[in-house]
């Protein structure tokens, strides 16, 4: 029995089941956008919610049905010119909890998300005044950790890495085309619209990056990046996800930044079984009818048993239970999907 948490523009939904039978519970958090799910180091579930009217909130639950809002979500200091617009990501490193937010920032919690501390080395980075938003805002949306090394993705700023547990940070974007620099110009330190990050936990220096400007790989912890798009119908997209048991990489390509739907409406996940050297359509089950919809960076998740699921901006869920060999669409239709979490 699996559970799939679905975060949408209008509340969250919880699917419980397997094979052809899935029960749907919800909406949870009616009236709120649900933008991120996570777990604390002790296994408590987290949901990040937001509202165009009432700001953000963090909720905790031990059973996914009963949730309690915390009193102190990540917040900029009172009087700050920055606004807390959205929680984009939670990440547990086994001891500390991390949260990436918009307006772009990184926060940590040592008490399971009840209280949060800003990470000043990143939030007040010497380049901060030059940070510019992407179409989705100025947001810290991806967090990876391996020992004292921490990587974050900030749009439209780039990848940053800390080698000392988050105290100091360096931009890591060599090899990526900038989004705001003319061809032939000296590559800037920042100004890169990173969309997604994935990592090999057995060799954390191996990273994959879905960027605004294409799909890339690093074998040196992000110091250098190389383009890897052989077999993809387009380099653009938001998702990069790695199944650690098999090393299979998955993405959902979209036409381009100006046309954020699948090429010719052919909604497909693409897989790579050779570390990104080549890509092919992942398995079977894809629709013949055109699907002019997108898949956002937080809307793809999977587990080690081989259950992968993604949600679309059109509110549909696609599921595989065999590591991506056969896919099917699940009912019902939901509002625009921003976050997916597979739970055992």
């Amino acid at each position, binding site marked *: 029995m699996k559970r799939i948490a679905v975060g949408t523009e209008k509340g969250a939904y919880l699917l419980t089941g397997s094979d052809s039978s899935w029960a749907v519970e919800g909406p949870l*958090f*009616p*009236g*709120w956008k649900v933008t991120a799910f996570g777990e604390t180091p002790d296994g408590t579930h987290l949901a990040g*919610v937001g*509202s*165009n*009217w*009432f*700001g*953000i*909130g963090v909720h905790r639950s031990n059973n996914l049905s009963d949730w*309690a*809002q*915390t*009193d*102190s*979500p990540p*917040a*900029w*200091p*009172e*009087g*700050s*010119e*920055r*606004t*807390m617009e959205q929680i984009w990501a939670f990440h547990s490193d086994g001891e500390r909890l991390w949260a990436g937010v918009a307006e772009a920032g990184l926060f940590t919690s040592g008490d399971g998300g009840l209280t949060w501390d800003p990470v000043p080395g990143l939030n007040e980075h010497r380049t901060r005044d030059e940070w510019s938003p992407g179409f989705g805002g100025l947001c810290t949306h991806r967090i990876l950790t391996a020992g004292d090394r921490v990587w974050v993705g900030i749009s439209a700023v780039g990848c940053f890495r800390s080698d000392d547990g988050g105290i100091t940070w360096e931009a890591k974007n060599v090899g990526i085309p900038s989004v705001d620099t003319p061809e032939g110009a000296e590559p800037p330190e920042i100004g890169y619209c990173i969309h997604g990050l994935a990592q090999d936990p057995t060799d954390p220096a191996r990273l994959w990056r879905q960027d605004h400007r294409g799909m890339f790989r690093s074998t040196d912890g992000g110091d250098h990046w190389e383009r890897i798009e052989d077999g993809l119908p387009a380099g653009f997209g938001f998702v990069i996800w790695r199944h650690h048991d098999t090393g299979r990489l998955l993405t959902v390509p979209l036409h381009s930044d100006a046309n954020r739907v699948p090429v010719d409406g052919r909604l497909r996940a693409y897989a790579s079984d050779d570390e990104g050297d080549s890509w092919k359509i992942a398995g079977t089950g894809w629709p013949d009818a055109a699907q002019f919809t997108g898949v956002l960076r937080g809307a793809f998740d999977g587990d080690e048993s081989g259950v992968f699921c993604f949600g679309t901006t059109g509110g549909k869920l696609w599921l595989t239970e065999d590591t991506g060999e056969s896919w099917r669409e699940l009912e019902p239709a939901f509002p625009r999907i921003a976050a997916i979490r597979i739970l055992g």
Partner: protein
Amino acid sequence: MTVSVRLPRVLTETVGSGPRHEVTGRTLSEVLENLFTAEPGLKGHLLDETGRIRPHVLMFVDATRADLETPIRDGSDVQILQAVSGG
């Protein structure tokens, strides 16, 4: 001054409180500060980082649009509404 504060349902469900709170204060600002003492999770939903009322939150004292400096009389009715906007 003791006043009654009514909250929109979306917030009472979020913080797990009732729809009506009895709070003291001489101005709307003091009323809110005392409300936040009882329900800390409400503060970030009603005020922004600068301490101002969020742009899409409307507050009324005795059915008249109010700001943080609005004086409160004993028994006043404070109603907080979500502006109608969005899709």
